[in-house]
């Protein structure tokens, strides 16, 4: 019925897979993938991520520019109150990211990612909790949309041109980033519900 499937009329309708051609096609692909992954691990290639995973982030030093934050709700159905923070450019040093997943058969599995230095652009984080030992702001601003004199008509927005903090711990509900470049990454997966302690990034 579908005759246009085979414009070459010499074919009999059946076909086979050439192992030699398969290897010739697959090997360059895998080599290219290895180069990209190695470049990503070395910080030469930026990798884009978007996700909504339960993670805890500890960072010895955080610096960001173009920061604005306002209350929001995150999670499916918007049930979780969160602070939505938009950052134009951010850099973290000596960071440790932990995420625990409870799998049906295996049980609790914790992934611990230690990062020597990472930078991100176009970062949006919806965080439910954030603590820091010290924070330094420059060019801070605060605004509340108000069209009547009696009460505000919208959510407040706080922001700063530059923000830096030490010993920061946060639990982001969701994040998006245009690009993330990292250096000195080590990943450890273990079968328990532990995490990394503050200051133990290295």
């Amino acid at each position, binding site marked *: 019925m579908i005759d246009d499937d085979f414009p070459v009329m010499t074919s009999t309708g059946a076909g086979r897979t050439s192992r030699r051609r398969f290897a010739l096609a697959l090997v360059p692909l895998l080599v290219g993938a290895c180069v*990209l992954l190695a470049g990503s691990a070395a910080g030469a290639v930026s990798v884009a991520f978007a996700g909504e995973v339960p993670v805890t982030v500890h960072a010895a030093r955080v610096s960001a520019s173009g920061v604005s934050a306002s209350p929001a709700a995150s999670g499916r159905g918007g049930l979780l109150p969160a602070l939505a923070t938009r950052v134009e450019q951010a850099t973290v040093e000596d960071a440790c990211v932990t995420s625990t997943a409870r799998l049906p058969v295996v049980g609790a599995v914790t992934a611990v990612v230690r990062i020597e230095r990472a930078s991100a652009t176009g970062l949006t984080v919806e965080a439910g909790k954030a603590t820091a030992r010290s924070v330094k702001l420059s060019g801070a601003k605060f605004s509340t949309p108000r069209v009547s004199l009696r009460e505000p008509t919208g959510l407040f927005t706080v922001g700063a041109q530059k923000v830096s903090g030490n010993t920061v711990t946060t639990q982001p509900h969701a994040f998006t980033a245009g690009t993330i470049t990292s250096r000195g990454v080590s990943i450890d997966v273990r079968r328990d519900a532990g995490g990394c302690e503050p200051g133990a990034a290295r």
Partner: protein
Amino acid sequence: MSTAIRPGRRCGLQEWRRSRPFAAGLLLGLGGLELICVSWVGLGFLRFTGTAGAASWALGALFVVAGVTTWRNPALRYFSGVLAAVLSLVSLVAANLGGLLLGFLLTAVGSALALAWIPQQAPATPQEA
């Protein structure tokens, strides 16, 4: 009556599978769906968040289209295979590390299978022993 039809249908399905790069199209489609599922599970339904979220959906859709193309028109297998091979590398950096590497592996193997498939040529003389 139905038992007489079933072997014919099965035979027809087998002929249909043999007459095109079936495994290549299947892997390309599965890889594309995996890219979308990783973005879907991580972000919530239809939340196009950031470049990686949008890229996952766009690349996933392109992989599914490439898979369907290899099934519907095997003569275009080189085009869809090369396109899928390039896009599988793009997915590594643009779509959550190629759907946490699984989507990349599926689409890379699928594109290689599409490029390696050879239609069986008809013999020069139609008379066979």
